[in-house]
Structures are given as C-alpha cells and as structure tokens.
C-alpha cells in the first residue's frame, strides 16, 4: 500500500490523466444526461438564460421516430453476423498461424496490417472493389467495369450484382458491410487469440496425442476451453464495437448512410446520434443514453452466458 505520507504524490502523478478525463469524458457524460432530460432544448435559447422543463420527451421522440426500429435492426444485424463470423475466422487463422513455422513472423505482420490502416481508407478501397463504373451515359464503354468483386463472381458464372450503386438493395448493402467489418475486425482478434494460444502449455497437446484425441476433438475440448477467457473478451469488445458501427458505413457509403438515391438505408444508432446533434441535441443525448443502455444489457447477457462456459 502507498504510505499515506506519499499519497499526495500518487495523486500528483495521476492528476494529468484525471484532469483530462474529467474535462473530456466525465463532464460530457454528465452534460449528456442533463440534455437528454431537457425538453425542446436549444443552445441559443440556453445561452439566453432560458430554463427548460425536465421530462422524458426526448426519449419518447427517439423511440417514436419512424426509422428507429430499422436503424436498431441494422445495428443489431451487423453485430449478430459480424461478431461470431470474425471471432471464428480469427480463431481459425490464429490456430493456423500458430501451427506453421515458415514465414510465421511475416504472416503475423501481414494479418496485422489492417489494424494500423485508417478505416475510412479501407472503406474507400472496398467501395472501389464493389463499385460499378461505366453505367454513366456517355462514358467510354472500354472503361466499363463491374468492380473486382463482380469480376471474381463472373469466373464462377454468377451475373454481376449491384452491391452499392444507385438502386442497390438492403441485403446487398449489408453483405458488403459484413465483408468489410469482418475484415477490419480480424487483426485485433487474431492478435489477442494468437497471444493466448502461444501461452498454452504444449504438454496438454502431447497428453491429448498420447490418448489418441482427434484433431477436431483436441480443438473443441482443449484449445477452445483454454482460450475461452480471451474468446469472451474478444466477443464482448466485438459487440460493444458493433453497436457503435458508423465509420465503416461512412467509409463505403459516405455520411448519407446509404447508396445514392436512398440515403439512410443503412442508418445505425451512432449515425442517428450524429445526425440529430445538428438539429436537436436533447434528442441526440437521449439516443446516446438509449444506446448505452442497450450495450450495457447486451454486455451483461454476454457476461452471464460466458461465465458458464469460461474457464479461468
């Protein structure tokens, strides 16, 4: 324990972080909660000294908003698909990376690259891959491209699909988002799971081998349970990140949150919050608190479920 005589020193060393957190995290949170309960809040009137009545009006208007269920649905859908898929893929890749020796370091670096790349930049590259160019009248027909992804499908005899261009459908858009989000989420998960794998005692595998355990059984009965604390961590942080999905959609569709001609088709909770800030800060604050509550509940459920299946 820190000697009480030296406690002030501890506080002194912590103070820069604490002060910054108070200004940029704690105070905004308090403010958000306040704003969420102020009805018809307007910053100009607030500066003029107007007092606002307190109530649940902002929450009601968020919940009664026409697109609320759709944007919540999109957010949940992206979470529910991308988190399991990316976790399983990451586990598979981590196990593979762990079992090969040749070029091991090099491949680890390759798989980690997306993590240090800007997500908007990645989004633009993905948009290019799915983009159809050349359906603009008057464009030289030799420049027509269905996009790399459609070209790839063409090899298998599948007709080009309108993924993200004008008039593209909801499920096509979701597919593109899933591919992009999973790809973007992999490096961090691989890194965490690979680290956990490398710290597993090799003797467990030797013991399993002597006992004639099949590879699949070794994986499910030994590897997965031994990694379960880290899998839990990756899943929970994945869900939290998933509920805050926004920049990935901006990266591909721009801040219209949808394909040309149909803005808002892929609106998410965070997208809605950013949109509302411009018009009604009370409503944006209420939406933020609703999102917080949803994440809290989902995380608690996650913890409850994983507690049963996690070995520490």
């Amino acid at each position, binding site marked *: 324990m820190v000697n009480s005589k030296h406690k002030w020193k501890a506080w002194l060393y912590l103070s820069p972080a604490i002060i910054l957190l108070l200004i940029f995290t704690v105070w905004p949170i308090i403010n958000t909660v306040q704003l969420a309960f102020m009805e018809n809040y307007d910053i100009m009137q607030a500066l003029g000294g107007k007092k606002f009545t307190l109530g649940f009006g902002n929450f009601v208007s968020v919940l009664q908003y026409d697109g609320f269920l759709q944007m919540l649905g999109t957010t949940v859908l992206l979470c529910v698909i991308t988190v399991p898929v990316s976790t399983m893929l990451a586990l598979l890749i981590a196990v593979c990376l762990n079992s090969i020796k040749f070029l091991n370091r090099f491949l680890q670096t390759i798989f980690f690259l997306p993590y240090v790349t800007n997500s908007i930049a990645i989004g633009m590259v993905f948009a290019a891959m799915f983009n159809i160019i050349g359906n603009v009248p008057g464009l030289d027909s030799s420049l027509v491209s269905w996009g790399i992804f459609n070209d790839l499908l063409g090899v298998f005899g599948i007709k080009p699909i309108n993924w993200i261009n004008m008039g593209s459908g909801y499920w096509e858009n979701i597919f593109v988002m899933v591919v992009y989000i999973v790809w973007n989420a992999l490096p961090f998960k691989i890194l965490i799971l690979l680290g956990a794998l490398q710290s597993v*005692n090799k*003797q*467990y595998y*030797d*013991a399993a*081998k*002597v*006992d*004639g*355990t*099949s590879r699949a*059984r070794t994986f499910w*009965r*030994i590897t997965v*349970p*031994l990694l*379960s604390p880290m899998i839990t961590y990756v899943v929970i942080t994945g869900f939290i990140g998933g509920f805050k999905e926004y920049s990935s959609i901006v990266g591909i569709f721009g801040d219209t949150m949808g394909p040309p001609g149909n803005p808002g088709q892929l609106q998410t909770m965070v997208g809605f919050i950013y949109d509302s800030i411009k018009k009604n800060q009370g409503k944006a604050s209420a939406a933020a608190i609703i999102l917080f509550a949803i994440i809290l509940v989902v995380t608690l459920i996650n913890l409850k479920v994983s507690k049963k299946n996690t*070995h520490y």
Partner: protein
Amino acid sequence: MKVVLENLTKIFPSRNKKSDEQVVAVNNFNFEIPDGKLIGLLGPSGCGKSTTLYMISGLQAPSGGKILFGDEDVTDLSPEHRGVGLVFQNYALYPHMTVKQNILFPLENLKGEDAMSKAERLERAYQAAKLVQIDELMERKPSELSGGQQQRVAIARALVKMPRVLLLDEPLSNLDARLRLQTREEIRRIQRETKITTVFVTHDQEEAMSISDMIVVMKLGVVQQIGAPQDVYDNPVNLFVAKFLGTPPINVFEGKVVGEKLHIGAQAVLDVPGVADQEVFVGIRPEGFILDSNGPLTLNLNSVEVMGRDVSVVSWHTDALVPAIRSIIDADNKIDRDSETINFKLKPHKVFLFNKETEERIVVER
C-alpha cells in the same frame, strides 16, 4: 508386455544453422525391458533419459534403431496406436475439466470396436480412481487438488485405458520430500497391482534405487550400466556410475597400486591381489570405513555429525578429489573429537579401483 529397444538413437540437429554440430541425445541404446517390471531411467539432466521415454511413447521419432512392444515393431506407430500411458512431469491435467472428466477423456477417444458405453466408461474411470485412491475427489477441478493428488489423477488418467506400457516422466519432482517418499511407495504398489510394464525417468538416484526392479544409468546419451539397483550399487562399472549412486556420495581419492598394494598418499591401505602397478582412482563408499586407531588410512578430522543411529565423520586428505570425505560409522563408536587425525580400516568390498585414463573399473580378484 516386454519392451525391446534396439540400437535406439536420437540425434537433434544443431540449433545454430552455421555449425554442423549435432546433439546426440541417445546413442545406440540396447535393452530388453522384461514384462511387468518397474524400470528406472537414471542420469543427470541432459543424459537422454527423457528423450528415451518420449521415443518409447511415440511423441518423438527415433533417428535410428527400433522399438518393439512384445514382438510388434512400433517404431513407426503414432502414440495413440501404441497403447502407452504417459504421466508428464507437470501432470498436464486439463485445467478446465473435473477429475472425472480428465480420467474419462482417454476413454471417450476410443473409436470403433474399442468404443465403450457411457456406463462402462464411468465404471472404468472409478476403478482407476479407486486404484490411486482419489475416488472421493472426482468432482473437483485440478486447481483444487494438492500436488500429490494431481499426481494420482495423472496416473489414473494414464492407467484408465489399460496401457501396455506405463511411462512416467520425473513423477516425483514436483512433490515435497515427505510426499515424495509416500508417492514412490504408491507408484510401486500400483505397478505391482496392475503388473503393467513401467518405465520412469528420474535424476534422483535414491528414488530410482528404492522402487525399481532394474535401473538404467545414462550419461550424455550413452547407457553406462543396467542392472538391479543393489548390483549396480555394489558393482559399478565405472567411476561415473559409482559417483552417481549413493547418498552420501562415494569418496574419491587419487591412489597408486604398487606390488599388489593400494596406496593413498604414502600409506598402503589395502591388499589388491592381481592388479598391476599403476595410478588409479579409488572410490570408497561412506559405509566402507571401520574406525580403528591402528587402521592404515589416516585422515585429517574436520567434524563429527551425529545423526542418531549413525555418526558421519567429515575429514579431508590431500589426495582426495572431494573437499569433504564422509564416513558413516555406527554411533556406538567413541570418537576423540579433539584429535587432529582419525584412522580407519577399509572394508575391501566397499573399495573400488578405476583406471585413471578410461575411468573404467579395475576388478580386484578376491
């Protein structure tokens, strides 16, 4: 099941790519382990004893030679097809499974005609648990067990599939001194009851001597001597084996044979009929000394340690290769502790002569 090792060799490639230096972990090991016996592989660390064990288990492939179980050549068989039970030094119990699940695990792997019903598996698991006396602990996790209990679970897990050969890697090294004594008796009892051919690896000579039917002493990958513990102790083939066995360790001197008499320093200490004149190493077991004021060997007395039943006399001599010479004598002997020197007579069968170059034993005809 007898286990035959024929010219068994393991060579590890050099770690450093630039040098061609290879490590010969096990060199030309030949041994027929008789059915149903308990064999101790003994040697200092890096002598190849664990490598030998892992080659028998199938986890490591030999670089040369053959391994036979009975008449069946298992050299190229993978571990799961050999029917071996292996107990690891750190037990390697699956931490996320209960004791019961750990013991059941090998049985659940059985496929085809070997597959068992759930009831059969449970019965077998409880049998194995009873044998090692942990049937009360079946629902616990390994982290809730003591070291000795974990050890027993590991043995039960190895025994449950009724292996043809049981292999134990340093089975007692993680236990405290008292538990070690208890557990080694336990291993002996279990081996006697199951009659499974058992090979265990240890660096502790006392452990190997106390429970093995036969011991194999190894040094730098080469087998030095194989035999019953008492035979190896009484008739070491070379200086290494003599030094490795026995607590306290053997006392080694530089000596000389002149006219069939062994000299240490200027003193003629023992008749050695049939030995040609030469310089030798002399090994004298601590129990090979008899207190005798007219004895031919004079040592400089250092201290006397009373151990109850026995007395340990610590002394030194300029020709001794060990800094402290230990002699164990009966506590009834009266020792003048203030004396500067002490005289001993030697028991001829506790004195061994070794060639100074080869360190091989020179047999004295008696």
